[in-house]
Structure formats: C-alpha cells, structure tokens
C-alpha cells in the first residue's frame, strides 16, 4: 500500500539516522535498523485560562494534547508544525471521539493548573480545538531489542520484542 496523505505534523529535529545513533549508543549494536516509521495522532487544543497572579489575574494559553489512540491528556511545550505527506499505512488509527477528547483536555488542564500553582481556584478554562496533529516516531530494531524513538526529542522507550 503506498497511499499518501497530507497531515499536520510536529516538526521533528531527529531523523532516522539520529534514531539509529540513539539505539546504537544504548545497546552498542552498530547494525541497528529502522524497522518502521509511525505517525502518531493527537487531538490538539489551545486551552485559554485565567491564572491568579499577585496583582490579579493573567490570561494564558496552554497547549493540551490528547492521545487519540489511548485517550490520555497532557499539557505540551511549544512546538512547530509543518504539513507533510506521509504514507497512510504509517498512521496509527484513532480510537477516541472528539467530544471525549475535549472532556479529557479540560480535566487535564484544570488538574494541571491546580497542582502546578498549588491553589484551589477557578481558571475559567475554554478549549479551542485545533484538530488532529501528528508526531513521528521511529521503531528501531537492534540484535536483541526494539526501541521507540521520538522524532522531536530523541527520547526513547523500549518496545516488546514479541511484537516484531
């Protein structure tokens, strides 16, 4: 299957060669190979919030991503987006409805603000949906391990070997 589609993707600074370097430096295996590229879907929201500060309140906008496969929410650091043509077979299928994602994002942001600022306050959070955005991952196989490497941070996580 070689169908392609244009998607909004988080600009990744790390390419397949960098992912191989990460794997090689971890495992010592210089024959590591890129097994596949994964394009991972997230719902993206701009969360507009009113945050209490010393002199009153300040309006801030936080970016919240909701994992469109697992339905897990998290606030996100700023990132650059770009349009990219990707192979459809590399895109992971979504499993979370948008309305559910809005609820998850709202819950995530209010909880995050309360615990980060350590206060009990109303933040008047409003969600502005930005639709789907995608992030690239590399799956790298070494002689005895499989690793998932993040194309934006070069962070890595082991994968199950049996899924190879």
């Amino acid at each position, binding site marked *: 299957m070689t169908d392609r589609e244009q998607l909004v993707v988080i600009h990744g600074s790390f390419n397949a060669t960098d992912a191989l370097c990460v794997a090689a430096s*971890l*495992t010592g295996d210089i024959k590591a190979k890129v097994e596949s590229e*994964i394009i*991972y879907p997230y719902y993206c929201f701009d969360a507009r919030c009113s*945050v*209490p*500060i*010393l002199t009153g309140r*300040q309006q*801030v*906008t*936080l*970016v919240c991503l909701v*994992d469109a*496969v*697992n*339905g*897990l*929410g*998290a*606030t996100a*650091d*700023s990132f650059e987006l770009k349009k990219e043509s990707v192979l459809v077979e590399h895109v*992971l*299928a979504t499993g979370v409805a948008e309305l559910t994602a809005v609820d*998850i994002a*709202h*819950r995530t942001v*209010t*909880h*995050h*603000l*309360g*615990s*980060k*600022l*350590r*206060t*009990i*306050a*109303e*933040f*008047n959070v409003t969600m502005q949906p930005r639709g789907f955005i995608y992030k690239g*991952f590399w799956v790298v196989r070494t002689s*005895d*391990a499989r*690793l*998932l490497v*993040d194309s934006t*941070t070069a*962070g*890595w*996580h*082991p*994968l*199950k*070997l*049996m*899924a*190879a």
Partner: protein
Amino acid sequence: MSTSVIFFLVLYYVVVLGIGYWAMRLGAGEDLEGYLLGGRKVGPMTTALTLQSTSMSGYMFLGAGALGFTQGYWAMWFAAGDIGGGVLNLSVIGRRMRKLSRMFGALTSIEYLEKRYPSPAIRFFAGVLTVFLLGFYVLAQLIAGGKGMALVTGIPYPFALAIAAGIILIYTFMGGYLAVAYTDFFQSIVMLVGVMWVVVAALSELGGLTAANNALNDLDPTLLSVWGKDLGFQGQWGVVAGALLIFSAGYMGWPHVVTRHMAMSRPATARKAGMWATAWNLLFVPAPYLVGIMAVLILPGLDDPEMAIFQVAGKLLPPAVTGLVMAAIMAAVMSTADSLLLQTGSIASRDLYERFINPHASERQMVTVSRGLVLAIAAIGYVVALYEPPTVFSIVIFATSVLGSAFLPAYVCAVWWKKANTPGALVSMVSGASVAFAWQYLDYVETTQIAPMLAGVVGSTVTMIVVSLATQKIAPVPSCIKEVMDQAAVVGPIPKRLLFAADDGLSPEAAAIDAAGNRRQSR
C-alpha cells in the same frame, strides 16, 4: 517573647512573599506558560528540597521534640525510619507507579487505585478514608501553628490559633505565587538552618554531645537506652518495628505522598533529587529528636514537652535567630498544611463529588466543593484544637498509622503483583484501616506490645494475599491491566542503568504501538 523575635518572623514572611513575587515576575508574561508547562528551570536540588519542605510538617518541631524529651534516645527509631523513607518509597513504587498512572490516565492517587482495581467501591472507600485522615493531619498542623504563634506573640492561644488557621487558609487559597518551588526551596533551607542552629546551641550549652550524654546518664540512664524511659519498651520489638515502619514503609501507603510519583519528572532527575533529599534528611531528621533529648537537661521543669524546641530556642538563642527558628516552624506547618488541604480538596471534588454525585460538575462547582471542604476542615479543626486539643504527636501517629496500614499493600501490589485483584484490595484496605484504628482506640499496644502500624500492615497484607488468591476465578485481574503492568515492567534487554534514561512519558505511545504491532501480526 521579645518584639525582636516578632520582627524577624515578620521579616521572614516579607522575604517569602518577595521570593514568590520575584519568581512569578520571572515567569510572568510570555514565560508564564513555560513555567506552567514544564518548570524546566527547576533542577534536582530544588525539586528535592521542595518535596522535603512539604513532607516535614509541624510534627518535626513539636511531636519529634516531645518524643525525645519524654523517651530519650528511643525516639531515634522514628528518625531512623524517616531518613530512608523517601528513598525506599521512590525505589519500590516510584518509577512503576509513574508509568502505570500515565498509562491509566489517572490524575489523582485515588483514581489510580480505581483504575488498577476496577470498582467504584475502591474509589469511594479510599476517598472517604483519605479525606477523613488528612483532615486529622491538618488538625495537627493547626495546633502546631497555634501553639507556635501563641508563644511568639504572647497573645492568647484561641486568637493565635485563629491567626494560624487564617494564614494557612490564605496560603492555600492564594497558592500560585506564594507556593512556587523557589519559596518551598527557601523554606526548606530556613527549616534546616533553624533546627541546626538550635542543635548547635544546645550542644554548646551542654559542653558537647559526650558531656550531654554523661549528664543524661547521671539524671536518668534509661534515657540513653534505645528502649525508652524506664526501659518502658524493653524487648518490645513489635513496638520498635512499628516506630521504624511508620515513616519508612508507611510512606508508600500515604495517598498524598505517593501522588508525587505521578507528577515526577524523568527518572534520572528523580534519582538525583532522591540523593539530595537523603542528604537533607540525614541532617534534618535526627535534629528535632536530639534537641528534645537535650531539653531534658536544659529545661528540666518544662510543662509541655511539645514546646521543647520553641523553649530551647527562646532560652539559648538571640532574638533574631529565635525568630528564624519560629519562621522555620511556621514554614514546616504552612508548606505541609497547604499541601494536605489541596490534596484533600482535590480528592473530595474529583474522587468523590465528580465521581459519585455530579459526573458533569462544572469547574466552578468543583472549586466550590474543594473550598467548602477546606473551610469545613479548618472550622472543625479550630473547634477541636480549641476545646480538646490532642497532642500533635498522637494525631500524626494516628493518621499515618491508619493511612499506611490501609493503603501500603494496595499501592505496592498495584505495581508488583499481577494477581492483586479488586476484592483483595478492598478487603485489605478495610481490614488494614480497621485493625490500626481498633489497635489504637482499644489500646492493644499495652497488652500485645505490637504497634498499631505493624498490626495494621500485617492485617492488610495477609488479607490482600489471601483474598486475592481465593477470588482469582470469580474476580480475575482484567487482561488489559495485566498488559499495562507488563508494559510498566522492564521490557527488552536494555541494561538497567540505561532504563533510567528511558522517557516514561512515551509509555502510552509504546503500549499503543505494541498493540498495533500485535494486531498486524495476528492478521
């Protein structure tokens, strides 16, 4: 107390406010989002000391001192457990709980329990018990703050208590710029410097540790023993084990403490933070107990043992330093009380109100519930602290024993034992809490020579194992939970030292990609 002491105490608050203001100005404007998102400038040392300042409560200045004063070196059993408690907690459940909670999408430690042991009963029981016991813990902070304030200002206790409660409430509701990491960091330094200053002054007054111990030996040799005054605990290993457990393994059963694992930064940062926290603990934790012991010699006619550290500071230190010590005590009280109140409010609104009463609660309703509960706890606490104030020591030991007994096996088995199921966890929580409560209420320590904490933990652990094994067929652990637990465990032949560098934030994505790979393979 002199006006100089009050001056330096007020100066301390001005500095705290100034640091908070400075920190928020640093993070104001375009960087405020950055602060709210990552707090990337906060390194391991600041992270560690922030945690320590919120962990160490008014108990350390009132309860620990009183225990040293009344029982001598026996009190060091508690200190020994406390020194290693943080690292033990981090090592046993820290990393796995962080991964599991992310993969479950749990925001609070009580929600995490429900996702691991799927049943509303788990969340309801855990939520109600935690709110009740954390309310007690807050009461201890109110009493500590009120007593300290009364001594510093000389105003009557009821008014001092009201002022202390007011300060704690303002601190909790304002949060934000007062409770940022840098103010906590500053408070932890003040706590350490304040208590160490009293230790040095006390030892100087007595001619050093050896001379002090010789004097104690002349006065009452049993105070030098590890078995307590008049050897009251001689051979009572059950009581000693309880003293060691309560602030070591007990930490792993406190929902307001384990929740920190869920917000922990990368394991590598957490590891360094753990080292800083241990170094801080080594210096800080034994000090209040030691001052309490020295107070036997310095203040032989002391009426209220809980005032030992306050009184030693007042007697030996110049007003400016006494002000610093008072500030340290208030720092311990405030940073812990606001943390406890926030946790309690969060559990009440999210784990009880939203979960069981109003699933579509608005943000405003949730805040109202949180604030209402915090005000109610403060009001009830004020009345109890005014009319029938228990000792800070007894409240803290009661609350922590019941919490630890109820939740220790539930949290530990949640990450380590795949057969731990819902009936096992529920019976374990109920039995652990009941045994620890009954043990204290019926004073079984006297007859059995076993501490409530030990009895409670044994009860909850045995029931967790027996009930889980007995109900595997009728209530098996769902396969999706087992899969998540597999993911949270070490996967692949990556050297253990390197696994600490893995990005656990990617665990949910890794699980999804593994699952997709499995589906493709099966096709």
